[in-house]
């Protein structure tokens, strides 16, 4: 009796499953990879993502629903709360969610043997193979353990793809440039002089005191406004705290370089002459933003996304000339601003399938699908007819929709557009799909369309159409065999972590001290700083890190 009962249940389940599998159909008006025999039965996968998404919708938005429709998968996503990672608890308790994007904690889970190897799936994972292309070896974990555990995050662009946003780190108000007839500002000296001249000419702006150059050293922003610009000014690419010799690939803590010292000497001079905002090292981020929005800060050394709020506010109140132009300023003419250097895809962490997942085949199928063309278009562009339309075979986003996506902070939560690109496999900016259109919604046109009036005026005066035109081209630089240095995973127990933290702490303390010191004392303060760094074995750290980079290059070249 019992046996037959079990048998009939099994039979029913098999019948139902195969019925549902057979029923799924996908009609598209676009060229898309064939869906093959996708198992589309409903399944819920739990997913822990270490990077809290700005506007999670709990997988209820339109794009999410579409994903479920096409794959049967519903994601239950959990993010860390209050900055505390739950990963140590997962490891201690031995229970993981089905999928996990663990970032810094990934190596711990690997040593706890909590992730399954994806190697056996990679052979059949067509979409993933296509997306990563030559970068596929970069998914491997380490030289000691060349298994692939994750499908890496951040957009993948084949070498040679044009980079459209320089992400430069020196900004100056359009008003200043216009006032001085759009001079060529190449060196720090010229840059500083331009600011000073304007300051003297206009001691107040909008009724408040003019501030020359303001920095925001609040917490981690120190790295962005104080740490990174120094590297940029001497031609170092975005490798974080490291200076890597492009020929020998030897790494060094960048603050040890004499040319970096000269950058801070320049800042010291700016402070002495009253151009530097004295509150640079005490103000909090919201105070900094308020200053920018008041339009009286002439120059900053920041990353575009950091002051985007202020730009938006200034645009709203029609003070476009108070927003910023980004210029490739360098210490002196012998350096080349490397913002446009293509560092190659960085590898690093990605989404993994854990040992707690009951259906790893399904999970892998889902991840592979996310790498497919149809998924990329869905997650980037949204739903056809809703977020974009097809005109003459090309995807077009209406002006109204673009406006909404730029200005409505809830756009992501409501529509789901852009919510599911990161941290899943993702095509980079500027990569074209088989029909010749871009995967991502950004085009050169969309970027230029988004320039405000002041930016357009400035670019025209310099004979450029896009910001990137003012920067040394990507082709002038070698690509990196190990991606962006800061993305290198540092093994758990190494002394390197501690030395680096101590070094960063020391830098965070001494560099402002050096900047605010009297010019005559600068060398003394700086030398003390370097001596302390040497005491905490920063040179050993350099050697260790060089080896890590070498290992990475070796691993990826296999």
């Amino acid at each position: 009796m019992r046996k037959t009962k079990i048998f009939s249940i099994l039979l029913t389940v098999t019948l139902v499953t195969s019925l549902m599998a057979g029923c799924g159909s996908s009609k598209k008006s676009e060229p898309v990879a064939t869906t093959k025999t996708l198992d589309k039965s409903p399944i819920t996968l739990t997913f822990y993502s270490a990077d809290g998404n700005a506007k999670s919708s709990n997988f209820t938005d339109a794009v999410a629903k579409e994903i479920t429709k096409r794959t049967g998968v519903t994601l239950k996503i959990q993010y860390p709360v209050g900055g505390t990672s739950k990963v140590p608890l997962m490891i201690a308790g031995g229970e993981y969610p089905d999928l996990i994007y663990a970032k810094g904690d990934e190596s711990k889970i690997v040593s706890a043997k909590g992730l399954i190897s994806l190697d056996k799936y990679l052979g059949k994972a067509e979409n993933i193979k296509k997306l990563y292309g030559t970068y596929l070896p970069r998914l491997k974990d380490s030289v000691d353990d060349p298994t692939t555990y994750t499908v890496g995050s951040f957009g993948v662009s084949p070498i040679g793809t044009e980079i459209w946003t320089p992400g430069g780190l020196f900004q100056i108000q359009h008003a200043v440039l216009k006032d001085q007839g759009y001079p060529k500002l190449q060196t720090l000296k010229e840059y500083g002089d331009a600011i000073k001249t304007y300051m003297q000419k206009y001691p107040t702006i909008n009724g408040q005191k003019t501030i020359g150059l303001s920095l925001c050293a609040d917490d981690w922003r120190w790295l962005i406004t104080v740490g990174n610009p120094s590297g940029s000014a001497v031609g170092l690419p975005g490798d974080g705290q490291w200076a890597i010799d492009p020929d020998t690939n030897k790494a060094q803590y960048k603050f040890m370089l004499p040319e970096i010292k000269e950058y801070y000497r320049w800042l010291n001079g700016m402070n002495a002459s009253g151009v530097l905002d004295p509150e640079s090292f005490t103000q909090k981020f919201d105070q900094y933003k308020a200053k920018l929005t008041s339009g009286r800060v002439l120059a900053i050394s920041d990353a575009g996304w950091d002051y985007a709020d202020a730009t938006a506010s200034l645009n709203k109140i029609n003070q476009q000339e108070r927003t910023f132009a980004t210029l490739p300023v360098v210490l002196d003419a012998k350096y080349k601003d490397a913002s446009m250097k293509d560092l190659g895809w960085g590898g690093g962490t990605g989404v993994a399938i854990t040992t707690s997942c009951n259906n790893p085949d399904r999970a892998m199928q889902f991840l592979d699908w996310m790498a497919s063309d149809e998924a990329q278009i869905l997650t980037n562009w949204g739903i056809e007819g809703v977020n974009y339309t097809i005109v003459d075979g090309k995807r077009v986003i209406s002006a109204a929709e673009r406006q909404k996506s730029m200005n409505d902070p809830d756009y992501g939560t409501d529509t789901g557009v852009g919510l599911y690109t990161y941290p899943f496999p993702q095509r980079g900016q500027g990569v074209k799909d088989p029909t010749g259109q871009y995967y991502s919604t950004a085009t050169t046109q969309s970027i230029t369309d988004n320039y405000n009036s002041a930016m357009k005026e400035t670019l025209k005066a310099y004979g450029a159409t896009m910001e990137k035109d003012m920067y040394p081209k990507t082709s002038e630089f070698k690509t990196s065999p190990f991606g962006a240095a800061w993305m290198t995973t540092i093994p758990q127990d190494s002394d390197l972590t501690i030395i680096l933290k101590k070094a960063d702490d020391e830098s965070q303390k001494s560099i402002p001290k050096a900047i605010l010191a009297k010019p005559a004392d600068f060398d003394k303060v700086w030398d003390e700083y370097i001596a302390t760094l040497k005491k905490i074995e920063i040179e050993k750290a350099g050697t260790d890190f060089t080896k890590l980079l070498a290992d990475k290059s070796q691993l990826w070249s296999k």
Partner: protein
Amino acid sequence: MKTFYNKGISYRGGICMQNIIRTKNTNLGASKKQNITVKKLIEQKYLLFMSLPFVIWAFVFCYVPLWGWTMAFQNYRPATKFSEQKWVGLKQFKLLFADDTFWNVMRNTLGMSFLALIFGFTIPIIFALLLNEIKSTRYKKIVQTISYLPHFVSWVIVASIVTTMLSTDGGIVNIVLMKLGILHNNVSLLTKPTYFWGIITASDIWKEAGWGAIIYIAAIAGIDQELYEAAKVDGANRFQQMLHITLPGIKPTIVVLLVLSVGSILNTGFEKQMLLGNPLVIDYSRVLDLYVLDYGINMFRYSFGTAIGMFKSVVSLVLVLIANNIADKLGEGRVL
């Protein structure tokens, strides 16, 4: 006058103390040298029922997790099983005490805690005493309710307010000080390391004094009103009443909280120091809990973090037991 000025023994305290001394040798008072006999246990069975379940609770929820202290003697990796962990003896502790930063951190922590004890501890008491002097109950309630509001405003917001107030760019503090002629130029107080402790203490008082006063207000409420009537009859004015009835009346509470505060000397937290601090004053702002966060947890050095935790626990316990003994010797009775 003489009745209550009697050698400083207050009404409240006087009655208690005398009672305790008197009853010390009666049944209810006898405390030392009791043998734990089965007979006694049955006699006091209600007391047993009212306390033993909680002792069990303490063992389960507080003592059992203490196995985690073994992490301090290992090179703990969350990944490996307990039995496979590598034992390193006192290495973590040696690392800790050899680290210069650690001693700097200890100095900062203790410095700020002492300031907190001297000012942060006394001001809520003074506030409670003064609050009690407000005649109208309605105003008393209103003032008391308003006074604790900053407790609910998070440190993130308070730090932002403080930073704005101290800024050289239109901050109130600078404006006022310059108007009063104390300052001649704008001074960015937040960049001066030696002022940091003062700023922290002042901000903390601002935020927590009202909330901290609640226990003293409650203690004052427990003072027998008849004592005030009697004192008034004896001709004492309000200030004297406050000094000789109210203050002694809450003395037991004060002693208890003081002893317990001594135990918490190493627990300054880290939020306010992190938020109000900046790279220029880091040598004065980094406290023990911040150190644990930066060099322990955020670096995934669990063993190191656990070692510091152990150190904190041991020191706190020793301090609180010493304070308890001192309180006992001074005649205030054991707190613990």
